[in-house]
């Protein structure tokens, strides 16, 4: 593995065999703003130099200027595709450091929303990945529109619950802000039934399809040792044979009540990660049904309704909360100093660590595989750059 240092980036065709091509931040399949400086020999990539930082918005500094009441609405903007888990990471950190109780109903509601969000995020992943592989004006776009149609159904559910479709502000320190409206559980079950049926259709379109298999099997193999060395998490890790899921390894928010089954594949290529995520779809749907069945009555927050901005004060301490987001381990390290604002907040973005495997697995593949691999790693640059 050799990534070229920046000084040797050159525009070279006219004698040299190696071509340096920039898959720039403005790119239809960069999944956000990601710059990859590829060194090509013909069609084969021999080096990748990854440049990030185009979406840096100073989240960690911002957290020092906003109080514990204000920041959860901002926290959803780190992993904006999977906003519920991002907010959960932050409030879990505050509750951990401040030793704040969360009532049982709120924990179940959090699980419910996190799993629904996981389904929605994976819908988006499937759509954009197929679109990258199939072209915005081709078969990929068809699957993209189908999965977006399903994601819209889940976003409708969230809209009825919170009023917003993408960035919810659903969590607050001590519980959640919103409770289920009337008729929501019925609507949720119906939506999940529709999605389960449509999921069968997508698998029919993709599973045996030789075109799809040829593009994904054997491509972007992440070996188990590499995955553990680099420190990836989420479906990237579980596709390489490591059965590690924070929902079972370090359960939070009553996940131990649900008996989460962790899907694992050993091949480590894009196809294995695809199978892991498809299995996660079904597992999340099962957890949602279980949460709806077992939802206890009670308050949704251990703090009375927020009335002032400095209402939550956390005593001195530090702690790290870990959440199984749709992409991996989302972590939030909080240092509190007794006031209403954190002293220091550090986000561990799941995609940031996952992107670190790219220089190891991309060289040796063709240009067309770069997008397939990036899609299966599924980065969201709000998490990477924060």
């Amino acid at each position, binding site marked *: 593995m050799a990534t070229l240092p920046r000084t040797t980036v050159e525009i070279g065709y006219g004698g040299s065999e190696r071509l340096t091509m920039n898959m720039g931040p403005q790119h239809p399949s960069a999944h956000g703003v990601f710059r990859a400086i590829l060194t090509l020999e013909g069609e084969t990539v021999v080096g990748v130099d990854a440049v990030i930082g185009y979406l840096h918005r100073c989240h960690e500094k911002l957290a020092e200027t*906003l109080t514990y*009441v*204000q*920041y959860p*609405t*901002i926290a959803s903007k780190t992993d904006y595709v999977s906003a519920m888990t991002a907010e959960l990471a932050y409030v879990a950190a505050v509750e951990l450091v401040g030793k704040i109780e969360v009532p049982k109903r709120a924990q179940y509601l959090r699980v419910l929303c996190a799993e629904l969000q996981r389904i929605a995020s994976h819908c988006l992943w499937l759509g954009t990945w197929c679109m990258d592989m199939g072209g915005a004006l081709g*078969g990929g776009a*068809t699957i993209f529109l*189908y999965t977006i*149609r399903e994601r*819209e159904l889940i976003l*409708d559910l969230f*809209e*009825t*619950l*919170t*009023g*917003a479709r993408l*960035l919810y*502000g659903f969590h*607050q320190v001590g*519980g*959640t*802000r*919103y*409770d*289920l*409206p*009337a008729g929501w559980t019925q609507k949720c079950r119906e939506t999940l039934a529709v999605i389960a049926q449509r999921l069968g*259709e*997508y698998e*029919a*379109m*993709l*599973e*045996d*399809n*030789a075109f799809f298999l*040829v593009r994904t099997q054997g491509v972007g193999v992440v070996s188990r040792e590499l995955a553990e060395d680099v420190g990836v998490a989420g479906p990237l890790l579980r596709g390489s044979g490591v059965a590690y899921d924070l929902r079972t390894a370090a359960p939070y928010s009553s996940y131990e009540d649900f008996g989460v089954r962790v899907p694992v594949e050993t091949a480590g290529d894009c196809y294995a990660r695809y199978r892991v995520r498809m299995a996660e779809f079904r597992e999340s749907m099962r957890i949602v049904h279980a949460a709806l069945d077992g939802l206890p*009555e*009670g*308050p*949704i*927050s251990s*703090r*009375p*309704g*927020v*009335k*002032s*901005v400095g209402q939550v004060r956390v005593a001195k301490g530090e702690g790290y909360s870990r959440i199984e987001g749709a992409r991996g381990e989302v972590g939030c390290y909080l240092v509190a100093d007794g006031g209403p604002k954190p002293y220091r907040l550090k986000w561990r973005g799941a995609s940031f660590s996952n992107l670190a495997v790219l220089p190891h697995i991309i060289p040796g593949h063709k240009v067309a595989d770069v997008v397939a691999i990036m899609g299966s790693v599924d980065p969201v640059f709000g998490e990477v750059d924060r």
Partner: protein
Amino acid sequence: MPGEARPGFWTETTQLVRAVGRAMGVTFKNLLRRPITVRYPTVKRVYPERFRGILALTYDPQTGEENCIGCRLCEYICPPQVIKVEMLKAEKRNWAKTFTLELYSCEFCELCVQVCPTDAIVMMRSFDLATADRRELLLDKDRLHALGLQFEPSWATGNRLRDMQAPPKPAKPTAQPTPDRRGPEASQGASTANPQSANP
């Protein structure tokens, strides 16, 4: 890929043909489904009760006075700091002398609605305020009141949200619903007899 191993060639080819047929069958089935497009703006989707749309200020339905007492709680809690309020002190109650809200920077998080003690600021069930000039989205108090009368308000007000989050109180003997302080149109159809469950 088909063509590699002679014995597997026909099985691979038949598998490919079957997979192609299945994929094309799925697209054909979708061809016959109704499109899900909603032809906005001719046809508008029905927005849910709690929809977080444009912000507006409200009048008291009984007295017709402005609800806002200029306490500035919304100004302090707003994460992007888009609200600016000046208080006008008077004998019986305070008022807001000026109230500006920069809607172009608002992140629609509903925190201001949540903290308002008098249900003065609420969000509407609409977002139709697109304009070609950004200055029109710098809403002053008159504009905010006009918006409150122009659109349909969402279910969420400060008191209702706080009631939803607070631990359940023991049932009171007189079941008096939380007074609706937003305006005459809002009190129709929104029942808050039991704020803890069965929320609309």
